[in-house]
Protein backbone atom coordinates (compact mmCIF):
# COMPACT_ATOMS: atom_id res chain seq x y z
CA UNK A 1 0.00 0.00 0.00
CA UNK A 2 1.22 3.52 -0.77
CA UNK A 3 2.80 5.34 2.14
CA UNK A 4 1.00 8.46 3.37
CA UNK A 5 2.93 11.50 2.22
CA UNK A 6 2.69 15.17 3.07
CA UNK A 7 0.81 17.21 0.46
CA UNK A 8 3.98 18.79 -0.97
CA UNK A 9 5.75 15.43 -1.16
CA UNK A 10 2.74 13.82 -2.78
CA UNK A 11 2.53 16.62 -5.32
CA UNK A 12 6.23 16.29 -6.13
CA UNK A 13 5.95 12.51 -6.52
CA UNK A 14 2.94 12.88 -8.85
CA UNK A 15 4.90 15.36 -10.98
CA UNK A 16 7.96 13.09 -11.12
CA UNK A 17 5.98 10.03 -12.23
CA UNK A 18 3.86 12.03 -14.67
CA UNK A 19 6.98 13.53 -16.23
CA UNK A 20 8.43 10.10 -17.01
CA UNK A 21 5.15 8.81 -18.46
CA UNK A 22 4.40 11.93 -20.53
CA UNK A 23 7.99 11.90 -21.83
CA UNK A 24 7.61 8.26 -22.90
CA UNK A 25 4.12 8.34 -24.37
CA UNK A 26 3.11 11.94 -24.93
CA UNK A 27 0.06 13.70 -23.53
CA UNK A 28 -2.52 11.56 -25.32
CA UNK A 29 -0.74 8.28 -24.59
CA UNK A 30 -1.08 8.55 -20.83
CA UNK A 31 -4.25 8.10 -18.77
CA UNK A 32 -4.74 9.48 -15.27
CA UNK A 33 -5.44 5.92 -14.09
CA UNK A 34 -2.00 4.84 -15.27
CA UNK A 35 -0.26 7.63 -13.37
CA UNK A 36 -2.29 6.80 -10.27
CA UNK A 37 -1.58 3.09 -10.50
CA UNK A 38 2.16 3.75 -10.99
CA UNK A 39 2.03 5.80 -7.77
CA UNK A 40 -0.02 3.16 -5.97
CA UNK A 41 -2.85 5.58 -5.21
CA UNK A 42 -6.40 6.07 -6.47
CA UNK A 43 -7.16 8.62 -9.25
CA UNK A 44 -9.08 10.60 -6.60
CA UNK A 45 -5.79 11.34 -4.85
CA UNK A 46 -4.41 12.75 -8.09
CA UNK A 47 -7.46 14.91 -8.67
CA UNK A 48 -7.05 16.32 -5.16
CA UNK A 49 -3.76 17.87 -6.32
CA UNK A 50 -4.49 18.52 -9.99
CA UNK A 51 -8.00 19.22 -11.30
CA UNK A 52 -7.36 17.53 -14.65
CA UNK A 53 -4.80 15.65 -16.74
CA UNK A 54 -4.30 18.86 -18.68
CA UNK A 55 -3.49 20.78 -15.50
CA UNK A 56 -1.00 18.09 -14.49
CA UNK A 57 0.64 18.11 -17.93
CA UNK A 58 0.85 21.87 -17.91
CA UNK A 59 2.51 21.81 -14.48
CA UNK A 60 5.05 19.21 -15.67
CA UNK A 61 5.86 21.46 -18.63
CA UNK A 62 6.15 24.55 -16.43
CA UNK A 63 8.50 22.70 -14.09
CA UNK A 64 10.67 21.55 -16.99
CA UNK A 65 10.66 24.96 -18.61
CA UNK A 66 11.66 26.62 -15.34
CA UNK A 67 14.77 24.45 -15.08
CA UNK A 68 17.57 26.47 -16.52
CA UNK A 69 21.14 25.59 -17.15
CA UNK A 70 23.63 27.75 -15.33
CA UNK A 71 25.64 29.43 -18.08
CA UNK A 72 27.33 32.02 -15.87
CA UNK A 73 30.54 29.99 -15.39
CA UNK A 74 30.74 29.09 -19.07
CA UNK A 75 30.10 32.70 -20.09
CA UNK A 76 32.76 34.19 -17.83
CA UNK A 77 35.63 31.80 -18.51
CA UNK A 78 38.44 32.70 -20.89
CA UNK A 79 38.89 32.81 -23.83
CA UNK A 80 35.77 34.93 -24.14
CA UNK A 81 35.42 35.19 -27.93
CA UNK A 82 32.11 34.20 -29.59
CA UNK A 83 33.29 30.75 -30.74
CA UNK A 84 34.69 29.75 -27.34
CA UNK A 85 31.66 30.95 -25.36
CA UNK A 86 29.23 29.34 -27.80
CA UNK A 87 31.02 25.99 -27.52
CA UNK A 88 31.14 26.11 -23.72
CA UNK A 89 27.45 26.96 -23.26
CA UNK A 90 26.44 24.31 -25.80
CA UNK A 91 28.45 21.70 -23.90
CA UNK A 92 26.74 22.73 -20.63
CA UNK A 93 23.35 22.31 -22.31
CA UNK A 94 24.25 18.95 -23.89
CA UNK A 95 25.46 17.63 -20.55
CA UNK A 96 22.20 18.70 -18.92
CA UNK A 97 20.08 16.97 -21.59
CA UNK A 98 22.23 13.82 -21.35
CA UNK A 99 21.56 13.78 -17.59
CA UNK A 100 17.80 14.18 -18.01
CA UNK A 101 16.61 13.47 -21.59
CA UNK A 102 12.95 13.67 -20.47
CA UNK A 103 13.04 17.38 -21.21
CA UNK A 104 13.94 16.78 -24.85
CA UNK A 105 11.44 13.91 -25.20
CA UNK A 106 8.67 16.20 -23.94
CA UNK A 107 9.71 18.90 -26.37
CA UNK A 108 9.76 16.52 -29.34
CA UNK A 109 6.46 14.85 -28.45
CA UNK A 110 4.86 18.20 -27.68
CA UNK A 111 6.02 19.75 -30.94
CA UNK A 112 3.41 17.83 -32.91
CA UNK A 113 0.69 17.97 -30.31
CA UNK A 114 0.82 21.56 -29.16
CA UNK A 115 2.56 24.56 -30.72
CA UNK A 116 2.47 26.35 -27.39
CA UNK A 117 4.74 23.68 -25.91
CA UNK A 118 7.29 24.28 -28.67
CA UNK A 119 7.15 27.99 -27.95
CA UNK A 120 7.54 27.42 -24.22
CA UNK A 121 10.63 25.26 -24.71
CA UNK A 122 12.06 27.66 -27.25
CA UNK A 123 11.73 30.54 -24.81
CA UNK A 124 13.20 28.63 -21.90
CA UNK A 125 15.99 26.73 -23.63
CA UNK A 126 16.84 27.50 -27.25
CA UNK A 127 16.47 31.25 -27.07
CA UNK A 128 19.66 31.43 -24.98
CA UNK A 129 21.54 30.25 -28.06
CA UNK A 130 19.64 32.10 -30.75
CA UNK A 131 19.88 35.38 -28.79
CA UNK A 132 23.61 35.00 -28.42
CA UNK A 133 24.16 33.99 -32.06
CA UNK A 134 21.98 36.79 -33.44
CA UNK A 135 23.54 39.44 -31.24
CA UNK A 136 27.11 38.33 -31.95
CA UNK A 137 26.58 38.14 -35.71
CA UNK A 138 25.02 41.59 -35.80
CA UNK A 139 27.81 43.02 -33.67
CA UNK A 140 30.44 41.46 -35.93
CA UNK A 141 28.70 42.85 -39.01
CA UNK A 142 28.66 46.32 -37.45
CA UNK A 143 32.36 46.03 -36.61
CA UNK A 144 33.15 45.02 -40.19
CA UNK A 145 30.94 47.74 -41.55
CA UNK A 146 29.32 45.22 -43.86
CA UNK A 147 26.09 43.33 -43.70
CA UNK A 148 26.41 39.57 -43.57
CA UNK A 149 24.69 37.66 -46.35
CA UNK A 150 23.32 35.27 -43.77
CA UNK A 151 20.34 36.34 -41.75
CA UNK A 152 21.38 35.82 -38.08
CA UNK A 153 17.93 34.44 -37.33
CA UNK A 154 18.44 31.75 -39.99
CA UNK A 155 21.83 30.93 -38.46
CA UNK A 156 20.11 30.53 -35.08
CA UNK A 157 17.60 28.14 -36.63
CA UNK A 158 20.40 26.10 -38.18
CA UNK A 159 22.15 25.87 -34.84
CA UNK A 160 18.99 24.82 -33.01
CA UNK A 161 18.18 22.10 -35.54
CA UNK A 162 21.73 20.80 -35.59
CA UNK A 163 22.12 20.56 -31.81
CA UNK A 164 18.64 19.18 -31.23
CA UNK A 165 19.18 16.42 -33.81
CA UNK A 166 22.53 15.50 -32.23
CA UNK A 167 20.97 15.35 -28.75
CA UNK A 168 18.10 13.25 -30.08
CA UNK A 169 20.52 10.78 -31.71
CA UNK A 170 22.78 10.49 -28.67
CA UNK A 171 20.48 10.90 -25.67
CA UNK A 172 17.13 9.47 -26.82
CA UNK A 173 17.69 7.19 -29.79
CA UNK A 174 21.18 6.07 -28.65
CA UNK A 175 21.92 5.62 -32.33
CA UNK A 176 24.63 3.09 -33.13
CA UNK A 177 25.62 5.28 -36.06
CA UNK A 178 27.27 7.79 -33.72
CA UNK A 179 28.24 5.45 -30.90
CA UNK A 180 31.96 5.93 -31.52
CA UNK A 181 31.71 9.67 -31.01
CA UNK A 182 31.29 10.84 -27.43
CA UNK A 183 28.63 13.52 -27.00
CA UNK A 184 31.09 16.34 -26.13
CA UNK A 185 33.15 15.48 -29.24
CA UNK A 186 30.06 15.41 -31.43
CA UNK A 187 28.94 18.80 -30.09
CA UNK A 188 32.44 20.25 -30.51
CA UNK A 189 32.58 19.15 -34.15
CA UNK A 190 29.10 20.44 -34.90
CA UNK A 191 29.81 23.83 -33.34
CA UNK A 192 32.97 24.00 -35.45
CA UNK A 193 30.96 23.23 -38.61
CA UNK A 194 28.42 25.88 -37.67
CA UNK A 195 31.14 28.48 -37.10
CA UNK A 196 32.76 27.61 -40.42
CA UNK A 197 29.44 28.04 -42.17
CA UNK A 198 28.87 31.54 -40.83
CA UNK A 199 32.53 32.56 -41.12
CA UNK A 200 32.86 31.49 -44.76
CA UNK A 201 29.99 33.76 -45.48
CA UNK A 202 31.76 36.66 -43.82
CA UNK A 203 34.89 36.00 -45.87
CA UNK A 204 33.03 36.24 -49.16
CA UNK A 205 30.66 39.03 -48.25
CA UNK A 206 30.27 41.88 -50.61
CA UNK A 207 31.78 39.95 -53.50
CA UNK A 208 28.53 38.55 -54.82
CA UNK A 209 30.48 36.01 -56.87
CA UNK A 210 27.60 33.62 -57.11
CA UNK A 211 24.96 36.13 -58.07
Amino acid sequence: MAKRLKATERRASILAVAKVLFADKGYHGVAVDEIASRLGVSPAVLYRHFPSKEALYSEVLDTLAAQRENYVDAALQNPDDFASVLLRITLVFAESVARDPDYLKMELLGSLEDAQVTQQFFESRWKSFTDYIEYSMREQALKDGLLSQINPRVAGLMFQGMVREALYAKCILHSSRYQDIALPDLITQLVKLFLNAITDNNDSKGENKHE
Partner: protein
Amino acid sequence: MNTHQAELDARGMNCPLPILKAKKSLSALSAGEVLQIRATDPGSVKDLEAFCLQTGNELLSSSEVDGEFIFLLKKH
Protein backbone atom coordinates in the same frame (compact mmCIF):
# COMPACT_ATOMS: atom_id res chain seq x y z
CA MET B 1 21.60 62.62 -7.76
CA ASN B 2 21.80 59.89 -10.36
CA THR B 3 21.83 56.40 -8.89
CA HIS B 4 23.83 55.01 -11.78
CA GLN B 5 26.35 56.04 -14.41
CA ALA B 6 25.43 53.56 -17.13
CA GLU B 7 22.39 51.60 -18.28
CA LEU B 8 22.00 48.22 -19.94
CA ASP B 9 18.74 47.19 -21.52
CA ALA B 10 18.68 43.38 -21.48
CA ARG B 11 14.92 43.07 -21.80
CA GLY B 12 13.79 40.15 -23.95
CA MET B 13 17.18 38.45 -23.76
CA ASN B 14 17.98 35.06 -22.23
CA CYS B 15 21.15 34.15 -20.36
CA PRO B 16 24.08 34.18 -21.16
CA LEU B 17 23.64 37.34 -23.25
CA PRO B 18 22.70 39.68 -20.34
CA ILE B 19 25.73 38.38 -18.41
CA LEU B 20 28.09 38.94 -21.33
CA LYS B 21 26.68 42.40 -21.97
CA ALA B 22 26.92 43.25 -18.27
CA LYS B 23 30.58 42.22 -18.29
CA LYS B 24 31.22 44.43 -21.30
CA SER B 25 29.31 47.42 -19.87
CA LEU B 26 31.13 47.18 -16.54
CA SER B 27 34.51 47.09 -18.28
CA ALA B 28 33.82 50.60 -19.57
CA LEU B 29 33.15 51.92 -16.04
CA SER B 30 35.56 52.97 -13.30
CA ALA B 31 35.66 51.30 -9.89
CA GLY B 32 32.78 52.46 -7.70
CA GLU B 33 30.55 53.45 -10.63
CA VAL B 34 27.12 51.85 -10.92
CA LEU B 35 25.45 50.06 -13.82
CA GLN B 36 21.68 49.71 -14.02
CA ILE B 37 20.43 46.58 -15.80
CA ARG B 38 16.84 46.02 -16.90
CA ALA B 39 15.85 42.46 -17.76
CA THR B 40 12.75 40.34 -18.28
CA ASP B 41 14.19 36.82 -17.98
CA PRO B 42 13.25 35.47 -14.51
CA GLY B 43 16.54 33.52 -14.57
CA SER B 44 18.43 36.84 -14.58
CA VAL B 45 17.99 37.18 -10.79
CA LYS B 46 20.00 34.05 -10.04
CA ASP B 47 22.40 34.67 -12.91
CA LEU B 48 23.33 38.19 -11.84
CA GLU B 49 23.79 37.08 -8.23
CA ALA B 50 26.20 34.39 -9.47
CA PHE B 51 27.85 36.89 -11.81
CA CYS B 52 28.55 39.31 -8.92
CA LEU B 53 29.79 36.52 -6.68
CA GLN B 54 32.26 35.39 -9.34
CA THR B 55 33.44 38.76 -10.55
CA GLY B 56 33.59 40.59 -7.20
CA ASN B 57 31.21 43.33 -8.35
CA GLU B 58 28.53 44.32 -5.86
CA LEU B 59 24.82 43.76 -6.42
CA LEU B 60 23.43 46.89 -4.73
CA SER B 61 19.78 46.14 -5.38
CA SER B 62 17.42 43.90 -7.27
CA SER B 63 13.73 44.62 -7.72
CA GLU B 64 10.80 43.53 -9.86
CA VAL B 65 7.97 45.66 -11.22
CA ASP B 66 5.36 44.13 -13.56
CA GLY B 67 7.62 41.32 -14.75
CA GLU B 68 10.58 43.59 -15.33
CA PHE B 69 13.68 43.20 -13.19
CA ILE B 70 15.92 46.13 -12.33
CA PHE B 71 19.41 45.59 -10.93
CA LEU B 72 22.04 48.02 -9.72
CA LEU B 73 25.61 46.72 -9.93
CA LYS B 74 28.57 48.55 -8.47
CA LYS B 75 31.86 47.96 -10.20
CA HIS B 76 34.55 46.42 -8.03
